[in-house]
């Protein structure tokens, strides 16, 4: 079997007020980043249940990225601080289960930061490409065998 080029799947949760607007701006500015980023718009980063991140990794994603407003700038006053705590917890859990916690990334990207959005998406995709496919999605097969 020939080794296929690894094209990661990265699920992006982008808050409606900042990072979704940044993604719009990156598009409008025709800034390119890999199509590996699979985006979903959420109202606030704080609405992202830790379960969402784990579910994405379980269902096949190689990584997840959560984008919110900068600290102090949250549209919902303090939502991004709550998101920060949740991501910290998910990272701890992943680590204690023996998985890389870098497969969950939290970034503050404001609505005016289209270039930052594109840069983060490019850098993170490159990073995940180097890391290789996530082991987490094979959790179903408890014997440790990889299921194709």
């Amino acid at each position, binding site marked *: 079997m020939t080794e296929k080029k690894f094209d990661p799947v990265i*699920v992006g949760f982008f808050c409606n007020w900042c990072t979704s607007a940044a993604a719009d701006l990156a*598009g409008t500015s025709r800034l390119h980043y*890999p*199509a590996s980023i699979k985006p*979903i718009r959420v*109202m606030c980063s*704080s609405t992202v*249940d830790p*379960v969402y991140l784990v579910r994405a990794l379980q269902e096949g994603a190689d990584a997840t990225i959560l984008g919110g407003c900068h600290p102090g700038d949250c*549209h919902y006053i303090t939502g991004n601080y709550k998101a920060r705590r949740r991501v910290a917890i998910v990272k701890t859990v992943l680590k204690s289960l023996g998985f890389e916690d870098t497969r969950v990334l939290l970034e503050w990207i404001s609505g005016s930061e289209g270039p930052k959005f594109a840069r983060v998406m490019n850098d993170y995709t490159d990073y995940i490409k180097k890391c290789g496919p996530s082991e987490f999605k094979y959790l179903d097969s408890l014997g440790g065998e990889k299921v194709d």
Partner: protein
Amino acid sequence: MAMKRIGVFICHCGRNIAGTVDVKRVAEEIGKREDVAFSTTYVFMCSQPGQKLIEDSVKKYNLDGVVVANCSPTLHEKTMRNAAARAGLNPYRVEIANIREWAAWPHEDNPDAATRKAIRIINATIEKLKANASLEPIEVPVIRRALVIGGGVAGMQAALDIADSGIETILVEKEATIGGNMFRLSETFPTLDCPQCILTPKMNDVAAHPNIKLYTYSEVEDVEGFMGNFKVKIKKKATFVDWDKCTGCGECLRVCPAHADSEFDLKMAKRTSIYIANEQAVPLKALIDENSCIRLQFEKKVKEGKIKPKKNVKICSKCADVCEPNAIHFQNNEEIVEEEVGAIIVATGYEVMPAEAFPELGGKYPDVITSLQFERLLAPSGPTAGIPRRPSDGKVPESIAFVHCVGSRDPQNGVPYCSRICCMYTIKQAMLVKHAMHDAAVYDFYIDIRSNGKGYEEFYHRAKEEYGVNFIRGKVSKVYKVGDKYRVQGVDTLTGRIVEVDVDMVVLATAAKGSSTVKEIAKKLRIPYDEWGWLKETHLKLKPLETPVGGVFIAGAAQFIKDITDSVSQGSGAAAKVMALLSKPELEKEPLLAKVDPEICAGCGRCKDQCAYDAITIDPVRHVSVVNEALCEGCGACSANCPTTAIQVVNFKKGQVVRAIDVLAEVF
């Protein structure tokens, strides 16, 4: 009841989408889904024929849900929802899949990947849409009254404009008179109007307006409620004088033996312990300063048991003795009043940093004062009748140095930003000094002159050319005392030389900051502010008057330091926002809010802890969470913390999001 007859409309957006994404292939792929009854493409979905296509298809195929794959939902979500609504479909059964900004444009270098990503985004959107509920906007009743906090020029303008439209307005001012900082000024740039002349008519209009209820010497104590329905507690501070009886004649001021620094004159003069804020105060009423009144201090000490009064001792009551209307009663008449309003404008204004904060620039010396203090010395109504005198010895100065950017543009010693008004008022003050004392030597140390307003640059040139003010481009490093004079040491960056001048007085244009009371008020209103005390607007460019809290607006320098022109404009602007809000009997609100399933909820309160809007309470009887729909903003922070999925945001339910995630994460 998951939707089974979904229509998917894929937009070409000219060549913007179709140039990269193979829209035909997308429509074919999506059309294979069992739950999709109809899928098609069109060149411009947002055009009239495009909208007609949605309307006709909803009717023709009896669609129960619609996904439009086009541009960002910020652009055309409303358009598409309205189109579906016209065909009888609930608008909340329409979702946008953003395949332009999020697929076609960023991946224009890889059309195949862009096409596959577009399909995936549309599939995820369909999965989310399938469980969408039909919703109606929530109607919230509105109290047709407004509150303005701060009686400076911005707050007065806002109150007058709202009141003129027939809406009752409450104006709360913490000081004993309205007028704000503008009333302290000598003259205004660039017109050299006297603020007392142009502002007093406005102040009297406020006091006399049938639709304005004025609370001076009062503070906002507590705010409850939400847009359209605020309950406000206002503390009327103790004046020890019955204002219904006081005529403002001022007899009491003549006999009072106790003194304190004048608030209005910013410590540039003394006032008596019973005082009227200034001669043109509105309202013109006397009040007693508890901390300096001999009688009230005596009574306080007796009460605390610190002194025991001898029998038949005569305590000072000179003011009451001369008061013909018997208004002075020495009783603590602090009072809390409650008002209900539908909208609030915060116009709390600014303060300047004190001279003492800059000891290296001589702030510790009495003759080194802030520009705002110097305004009082230049004002014809001020303590020196418009001819500046040194605070230390009362001597008329023969030479004055002005220093720009004291604390401004200086993150180490003050603030990082430009305080915006200092260049212009310093130039004005230099001019006024020349008006008052023709032969005075005036030195003006600046970094740059920022004269960005109508008539401002011309004003600067007048000061330079007609008045002979010495402008020196460079920073001042040190001010110290040499004999009777103050030596100002700086550099002239145009000639590259060190400059030293000995002057009688130094005026520091210190940095402006938000009012010191603003943080407290902002916390009560739950609106954000920055570390310098400026209130944070919703959007700096497009929503400068709004705050993230619905129904609360900002006007004037409370948002950031402004000159009078801008403050007045903002006052009127915020008033227009309030009038628009209060013009309807009921407000419509997006129904995408948190909802509790009382069957599952255990009343643990974890959602309540997460809510930044205090929208969640625990019902004490049923012991379940209850969401106040008027307060909830629909962020969903509560739902992420709920251990039982009892609280969820409508149409953003966990099941919906998880199904969308499954599609996005799938490897294929």
